[in-house]
């Protein structure tokens, strides 16, 4: 669907032609339901980015769902240990397609400085990742930048959304 303002400007019975991929991508990128998988200190920065001051809702991602069945975006926020890795994988498997994954913070990207016996060395060893947001923790501006890059990616994926 095109934006409503465009419809209103059209004469009676007018049509707007667009590509299905573009329309789907446009609809999906502004209605991201996110599942925050928060395990560590990055959660504070996630709260800051999501709450009113930085207001993630401006970008259509203002609705955290705590059921993976209702979520489009898995936000992995914080260190993932080997003990919780199977849980994270199960959450990902339970999400309905199309779905995307954001690695939030350097621990989820690479393990960060936890190069030890207990920590997963990057969540991309256990599930596919769409956008990496490094930082320890990332500033809310970096999170919003990552989110807008993800939106760009969703727009370009169209029907092929994962």
């Amino acid at each position, binding site marked *: 669907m095109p934006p409503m303002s465009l419809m209103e400007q059209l004469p009676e019975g007018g049509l707007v032609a667009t590509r299905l991929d573009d329309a789907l991508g446009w609809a999906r990128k502004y209605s991201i339901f996110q599942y925050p998988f928060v395990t560590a200190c990055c959660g504070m920065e996630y709260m800051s980015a999501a709450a009113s001051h930085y207001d993630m809702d401006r970008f259509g991602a203002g609705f955290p769902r705590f059921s993976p069945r209702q979520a489009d975006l898995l936000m992995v926020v914080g260190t993932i240990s080997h003990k919780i890795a199977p849980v994270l994988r199960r959450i990902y498997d339970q999400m309905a397609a199309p779905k995307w994954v954001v690695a939030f913070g350097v621990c989820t990207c690479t393990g960060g400085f936890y190069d030890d016996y207990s920590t997963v*060395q990057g969540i991309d060893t256990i599930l596919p990742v769409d956008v990496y947001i490094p930082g320890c923790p990332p500033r809310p501006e970096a999170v919003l930048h990552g989110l807008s890059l993800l939106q760009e990616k969703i727009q370009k994926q169209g029907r092929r959304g994962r």
Partner: protein
Amino acid sequence: MISETRTVACAQALDTLSRLKAEGYNLLVDLTALDYSVYGKRPASMGWEQNFPSGAPAPRPERFELVYRLASLDPVTGLEAKPRVEVRVSCGEGSSLLSVMSLWPNADWLEREVWDMFGIKFADRPGIKRLLLYEEFVGHPLRKDYPVNKRQPLIGPKSGELAGSPSFNIARQEIPFE
């Protein structure tokens, strides 16, 4: 905070701790352990000895040392009634160390953590379970002989070496992204 440190042999540990409990030390603040298996045994050429101006430390006869830190809380005021005490218990691999769960119930989880990280056994807790790591984990990671690069993931690459970023590379191929 610690005003007094007592070093006790393994066999007298429970006696000493019971006496301290009777003296009013009603709170076990922490229970942890140290692995001295390589302490004082490294060649002097490695350059670490400059941290010890009085000379290199001598190796310890026993491999492990358990550290019990005790406090005495007044049940009415909540203030500490006595200076804190630290009890250090030397024990070897096969020592018959006894649990202090009967004195301080919170020793349950602390002893499980010591077992989990160091593999120190408590003679009267034969079926002790890990506290933090998963049951499939083999070995005890805070021992000095646990290989620093050893990885035991439950899922993901079994060898433990760093995987690339397959999803990122696939995304680059499929979708022109900036």
